[in-house]
C-alpha cells in the first residue's frame, strides 16, 4: 500500500517535504510486507486476530494489519476506497450491482477454493444480482437460523416445556400459558420479546414464519419475482406470517408498540436483563446474554416446522463474504495479499474460523475431520436438530435474494426498510386492514421490481 | 541640536496634493508650534519630518543632512503621539527602555538611563506599572520619557495634550516648556489650540489648506497678522471684520463707508486697496465717536460674562461685531450706539485678504 506513488507524486512530495514536517510523516514501511485486512466484524476482531497470528507465524516477514469497520467508521472507509486507497482484504462485504467492480473478480484469478464450497459459489452473485461471470466475494458462512430462545430455568418455574412444541398451535398454547405466568410476575414484562429491525423483519422473520405456516421458499421466490401478486391474499405466502404477528400483538404476546422498540437498546436489553423469558433470536442475542451472564441457562427452539418437516434457513450468498480489492491488482504486494486471502478461505482455516465464531460453515470440511462447534446455540439447538434429522432445513435462495437481478438500481426493498415499521405497526394494531398493507407492498414492489 | 529646513516640500496622496510646496525653517533649540485648523496639513507635515510619511517633492533637511529617504529611526527625531502609543502590555520601565533595546544598548546602561530619565519626569515610583494603571498625565510623561531617552536632535509632539483635561493641560504645558528650557532641544509641537501655541511657542507656524500662512513669534502674529485668515484664527473671540465700500482719505484722517451706508471716521490714513477693516473686540469701546449706529440699525444678541469682563455681541446691517467691556458696563438700551475704535490697532485687508500697512513687513509665505 505504501509503495503507491507516481512520478508526479514523488516530485511534488520532495518539493513539499519541507512543509510536511518530517516528524509527523508516516514512518517509511520496513522491508516486511504489510497486508491490511478488515476484520469479519468488529465484534470478532479478537477471534480473527488470533487466527491471523497463525498466518504471521507461518509467514515470517508478513505483517497482517487487522482493523475493524463499524457503522460509524463505514462512511470514512468508503471514502478511502473511493479515493483509490483500499485495504488489501475486506473481511465482510455486501457486494451490490453498483459496487461489485470494486472487488477483484475471483473467477479471473487462480482462486483455489471454489469446489470446497457446498453451494455454487461461482455463480451465486449472478443468481442474486444478475451479473454474469463475476464473483466479487467468497462466503464461507452457512445461512443463519432463526429461533426462539428462552431462559430454561424460568420456563421450568412456569411449568412449561418449549421443547415439546411441534406445531404453531402448540406455540400458541405455550404463549397463552406463558402470558398467564408473566402476568403474575412483577419482574417480568413481556411474553415473547421482539423489536423492529428492517433486515430481521424484511429478509428473515416473515419468510421463516411463512415457511413454518405451510409455504415453501419457492412460494416466496415466486412472490418476489412477480409470479404471485402481493395483493393475492390466497396465495401470498407472507400473509399467514403477517396475520400471526397481528394475532400475537392483539393477544399481548408481543410487547406493546413493538415496532417502535429499538433492536439493541430496547428489545435485546430487556431480554438480557430478564424483563422477558422468551425472545425471537437474531444472529447475536445468544452470545450477548452469555457474555453478560455466563451462568444463564439459555435454550432455544426453532419456529415450528411445516407439515413436511421443513424449517427455514437463510441461503448462503456472496453477502458477508471476503473480497480482494480490484484497485490493488497492480500493487507490489498483491501476490502476497492473494496468498493470504487463499489461506483465509481455505478449508483448514475456515474450520478454525467457524469454530471460533460459531457458525455452520458453507464448506465441505470432511478433509479436516469436520467442524467441531462449541458455541451454545449450536450445542443446545442446531447440533441436536441436525443429529436427530427429523426436520430438514431449506437453505435455498430466499425471495428477496432471488429477485435481486430484477431490482432497479437505487430502489428500496419491499419490507427491509425502516419506513415499513409504522406500516406494519398500523396493520397489527388494527389501524389499517390487511388489504391496505398488501396494496402498499404491491406498490413498493412495482416501484422497485416492476416493469 | 539641529534646525529643520523644508524647501518646496510637497505631499501628495495619489492625485490629491495636501501640502503645497512648503518652505519653512524651524529654528534650532527652540520650541516651534505648528498651528492650524483640522485638515490644514500640520500633522502631515510633522509626520513627514518624522519619516512616517514620504516626501512627494522638495527637500527636508535636519541640521545639514538631507533626510528625504532616511529611515525614521535614523533621523534623530523622537515623537510623542496624540494617544501616546505606549505599548500596553509593557511596564513603564520597558516602554521607556524599548528604544534603547532596539539600539542594542547594554542592559546596565539601559537601567541607568531609564532611572535617570524617570527621575527627571518624576516617574520613578511608576516604573513597574502598566500603562493602563496610569493617569492621563502620567502616561503623557512616560511618552515623553520614551522620547527623551534617545537624546534626539528633534522632538516631535503631535497634539500631545488634547487627551488631557483642562487643568492637567496647563500643568503639562508648563512642564513641556520647562523641559524645553532644560534640554535646550529643538521641539516641534502640533496643535489646533491657539492658547497652547501662544503660551508655549518660541515660534508659531500658522497653517491652512496645505499652505504656511505666517511664521513668527506669538505676539507678533497676534498683533500683526499677515492676512485675514491669521487675523481671524488667532484671538478669541475672533477679530471683527467690517467690509467697506469706499474710503475718503484726507491728511491723517479718513472716512470709511461701510456696506449699508454707515461711516467710520478714523484719525489715520487708510491704504487705497483696503477692502476690509479688522479690529479685535478689545479695541472697540462703547461711547467713542468713530462709528455711530442709529437705534433702528442694530440689535444686541447677548453677552458672555467672564467675571471681570464681558463680550457683547451686536448685530449690524453688514454683520455681527463683538465688543469687550469691563464687567458691569452695559450697552445703552435706548438711542443710538456710538463706538470708538483704537486707530493704532485697526487692521486693513485688501480684496485677497492680505494685510496692508504696518503689518506687511511681517508677512511671509502667503500666496
Amino acid at each position: 500500500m505504501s509503495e503507491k506513488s507516481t512520478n508526479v507524486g514523488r516530485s511534488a512530495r520532495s518539493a513539499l517535504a519541507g512543509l510536511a514536517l518530517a516528524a509527523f510523516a508516516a514512518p517509511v514501511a520496513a522491508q516486511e510486507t504489510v497486508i491490511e485486512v478488515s476484520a469479519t466484524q468488529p465484534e470478532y476482531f479478537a477471534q480473527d486476530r488470533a487466527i491471523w497470528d497463525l498466518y504471521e507465524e507461518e509467514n515470517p516477514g508478513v505483517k497482517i494489519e487487522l482493523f475493524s469497520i463499524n457503522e460509524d467508521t463505514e462512511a470514512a472507509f468508503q471514502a478511502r476506497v473511493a479515493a483509490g486507497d483500499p485495504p488489501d482484504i475486506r473481511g465482510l462485504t455486501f457486494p451490490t450491482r453498483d459496487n461489485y467492480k470494486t472487488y477483484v473478480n475471483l473467477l479471473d484469478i487462480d482462486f483455489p477454493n471454489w469446489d470446497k464450497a457446498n453451494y455454487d459459489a461461482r455463480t451465486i452473485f449472478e443468481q442474486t444480482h444478475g451479473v454474469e461471470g463475476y464473483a466479487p466475494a467468497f462466503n464461507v458462512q452457512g445461512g443463519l437460523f432463526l429461533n426462539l430462545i428462552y431462559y430454561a430455568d424460568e420456563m421450568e418455574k412456569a411449568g412449561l416445556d418449549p421443547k415439546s412444541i411441534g406445531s404453531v398451535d402448540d406455540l400458541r398454547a405455550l404463549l397463552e400459558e406463558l402470558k398467564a405466568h408473566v402476568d403474575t410476575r412483577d419482574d417480568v414484562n413481556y411474553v415473547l420479546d421482539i423489536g423492529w429491525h428492517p433486515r430481521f423483519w424484511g429478509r428473515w422473520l416473515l419468510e421463516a414464519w411463512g415457511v413454518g405456516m405451510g409455504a415453501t421458499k419457492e412460494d416466496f421466490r415466486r412472490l418476489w419475482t412477480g409470479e404471485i401478486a402481493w395483493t393475492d391474499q390466497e396465495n401470498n405466502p407472507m400473509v399467514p406470517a403477517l396475520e400471526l404477528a397481528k394475532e400475537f400483538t392483539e393477544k399481548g404476546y408481543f410487547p406493546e408498540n413493538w415496532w417502535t422498540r429499538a433492536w439493541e437498546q430496547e428489545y435485546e436489553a430487556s431480554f438480557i436483563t430478564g424483563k422477558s423469558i422468551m425472545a425471537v433470536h437474531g444472529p447475536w442475542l445468544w452470545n450477548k446474554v452469555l457474555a453478560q451472564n455466563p451462568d444463564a441457562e439459555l435454550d432455544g427452539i426453532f419456529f415450528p416446522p411445516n407439515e413436511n418437516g421443513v424449517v427455514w434457513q437463510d441461503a448462503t450468498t456472496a453477502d458477508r463474504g471476503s473480497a480482494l480489492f480490484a484497485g490493488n491488482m497492480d500493487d507490489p504486494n498483491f501476490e502476497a495479499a492473494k496468498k493470504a486471502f487463499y489461506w483465509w478461505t481455505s478449508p483448514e482455516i475456515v474450520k478454525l474460523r467457524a469454530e471460533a465464531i460459531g457458525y455452520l460453515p458453507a464448506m465441505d470440511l470432511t478433509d479436516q475431520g469436520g467442524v467441531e462447534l462449541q458455541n451454545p446455540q449450536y450445542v443446545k439447538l442446531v447440533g441436536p436438530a441436525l443429529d436427530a434429522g427429523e426436520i430438514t432445513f431449506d437453505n435455498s435462495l430466499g425471495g428477496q435474494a432471488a429477485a435481486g437481478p430484477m431490482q432497479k438500481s437505487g430502489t428500496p426493498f419491499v419490507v427491509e426498510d425502516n419506513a415499513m415499521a409504522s406500516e406494519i405497526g398500523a396493520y397489527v394494531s388494527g389501524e389499517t386492514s390487511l388489504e391496505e398493507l398488501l396494496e402498499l407492498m404491491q406498490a413498493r414492489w412495482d416501484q422497485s421490481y416492476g416493469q | 541640536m539641529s534646525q529643520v529646513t523644508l524647501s518646496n516640500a510637497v505631499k501628495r496622496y495619489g492625485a490629491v496634493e495636501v501640502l503645497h510646496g512648503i518652505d519653512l525653517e524651524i529654528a534650532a533649540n527652540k520650541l516651534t508650534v505648528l498651528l492650524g485648523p483640522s485638515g490644514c496639513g500640520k500633522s502631515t507635515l510633522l509626520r513627514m519630518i518624522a519619516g512616517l510619511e514620504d516626501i512627494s517633492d522638495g527637500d527636508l533637511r535636519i541640521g545639514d543632512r538631507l533626510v528625504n529617504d532616511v529611515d525614521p529611526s535614523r533621523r534623530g527625531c523622537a515623537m510623542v503621539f496624540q494617544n501616546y502609543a505606549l505599548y500596553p502590555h509593557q511596564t513603564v520601565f520597558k516602554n521607556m527602555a524599548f528604544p534603547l533595546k532596539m539600539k542594542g544598548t547594554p542592559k546596565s546602561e539601559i537601567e541607568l538611563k531609564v532611572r535617570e530619565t524617570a527621575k527627571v519626569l518624576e516617574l520613578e515610583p511608576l516604573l513597574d506599572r502598566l500603562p493602563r494603571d496610569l493617569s492621563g498625565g502620567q502616561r503623557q510623561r512616560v511618552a515623553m520619557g520614551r522620547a527623551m531617552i534617545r537624546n534626539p536632535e528633534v522632538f516631535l509632539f503631535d497634539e500631545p495634550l488634547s487627551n488631557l483635561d483642562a487643568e492637567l493641560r496647563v500643568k503639562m504645558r508648563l512642564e513641556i516648556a520647562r523641559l524645553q528650557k532644560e534640554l535646550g532641544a529643538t521641539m516641534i509641537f502640533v496643535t489646533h489650540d491657539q492658547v497652547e501655541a501662544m503660551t508655549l511657542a518660541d515660534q508659531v507656524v500658522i497653517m491652512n489648506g496645505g499652505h504656511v500662512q505666517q511664521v513668527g513669534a506669538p505676539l507678533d502674529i497676534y498683533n500683526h497678522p499677515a492676512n485675514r485668515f491669521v487675523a481671524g484664527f488667532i484671538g478669541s473671540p475672533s477679530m471683527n471684520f467690517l467690509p467697506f465700500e469706499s474710503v475718503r482719505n484726507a491728511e491723517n484722517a479718513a472716512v470709511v463707508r461701510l456696506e449699508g451706508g454707515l461711516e467710520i471716521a478714523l484719525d489715520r490714513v487708510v491704504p487705497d486697496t483696503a477692502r476690509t477693516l479688522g479690529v479685535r473686540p478689545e479695541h472697540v469701546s462703547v461711547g467713542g465717536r468713530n462709528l455711530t449706529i442709529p437705534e433702528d440699525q442694530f440689535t444686541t444678541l447677548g453677552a458672555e460674562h467672564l467675571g471681570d469682563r464681558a463680550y457683547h455681541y451686536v448685530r449690524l446691517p453688514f454683520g455681527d461685531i463683538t465688543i469687550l467691556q469691563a464687567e458691569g458696563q452695559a450697552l445703552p438700551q435706548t438711542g443710538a450706539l456710538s463706538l470708538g475704535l483704537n486707530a493704532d490697532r485697526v487692521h486693513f485687508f485688501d480684496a485677497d485678504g492680505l494685510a496692508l500697512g504696518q503689518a506687511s513687513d511681517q508677512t511671509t509665505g502667503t500666496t
Partner: protein
Amino acid sequence: MGKASTKNTLLIVVLSAYCLLTLVPFYILAVRAFTPTIQSTELHLWIPERRDLSMNSRIGDLSTIYNVDARAFRNAMEIKGYLNPQLKLSQIAEQYGIEPDRIRDYLEPYVQYNGIYTIVNNGFVRSLIATIVVTGASVLVGALLGIMTGSALAGFRRRWHMFVYNSYLLNMIIPPMMVILPQYIIITRYLGLENSLMSLILLHIKGGALSTMVFTSYIATVPRELKESVAMDGGKHYHYFLYILLPLMGTPFAVFASITMPWFWNDLLHALVLLRPDNYTLPAFVASIGGTFTTNFEAIFSGVLLSLAPILVVYLVFQKLFIRSAMAGAVKG
C-alpha cells in the same frame, strides 16, 4: 438596599441552578462510564452494582462484548499457540494448567471497570497525544497564520485585501464532506502524508477565514501609532510583530482558540478517512470502539468522558487568559 440584596440573591440562585442544570449531563455521562452496557437503557443516578466475573465466561464472548484483548490475555497467561475463543475460562484453567485466580485477577478489572479499561488498554493515551498534537499545532499555527494575514489585511485598505478575504470565506463555506476525496488524493498521493497527523493539521489550518476574520478585526483596533512608534524607536517590522502585536493578541487568540479547539478536537471525519487505527485521534478512536451488532456503551461513554476531561482543563486555562485579556485596557486612556 434590602430590595437590591434580595434581587441579587435571587439572581445568584437562578444562575447557580442554571449552572448545575448544565452540568447534569456531564454527571450522567460520568455515571454511564461505569454502568454496564446491559443496564444502559435505564437512567442511573449512581454506579450500579455488577456481578463478579464468572469462570463460565467464554474468552471469545469477553473479547466480543467486553473488548478483552485476547492476544494480550494469551501473552499474560503465557499460553502458546492458538487459543480457541469458545473455551470457557474454567476450561482454559484446566487445559493450560493455570491457576483460576490468576485468570480471575487478570480479567476481573475488565468486567468491573470495563469502559475505562477498554479505553485505556486499547490506545487511549496514544490517541490523546495524537489529539493534543493535532489540536495544539492546528490552533497555534492557525493563529499565527491568522495574525500574519490579519496584520496584512487589517482595515481592508486595498481592493485585493477584500478579494483575498472573500476567497478565504468561500473556502470556509464549502462543506468538508464535498472535497474529502480530492483532499484525500492530494494528501496521500502528492504530499505523501498517508496516515500522518500532519495531514489533519494541514486541513485544519487551510483556508483561514475564521482566524483572518477574528484577527483582522482585532488588529484593526490596534492604533497604527504603535507601529509607527516602533519604527521611530528603531524597530523593524518583525520587532513590531514579535514584541508588540503578538503579545496583544491574547483576546482574539482566546476567541479563536475557544471556537476552533472543539472543532479540531472533535474532528471525526478527517481523522477516520486520513488516519489508520494506530494513529487515530480521540473521536475516531472512540468511534472505532463500537461493533456492528453490539455496542459497548460503557466503553463509548468512558471514551467520551476521558476525551472531555483534557479539553475541560484546557478550557479552564483559557478562561483565565480570556478574562485577563478582556480586562486589559485599550491603548487610549
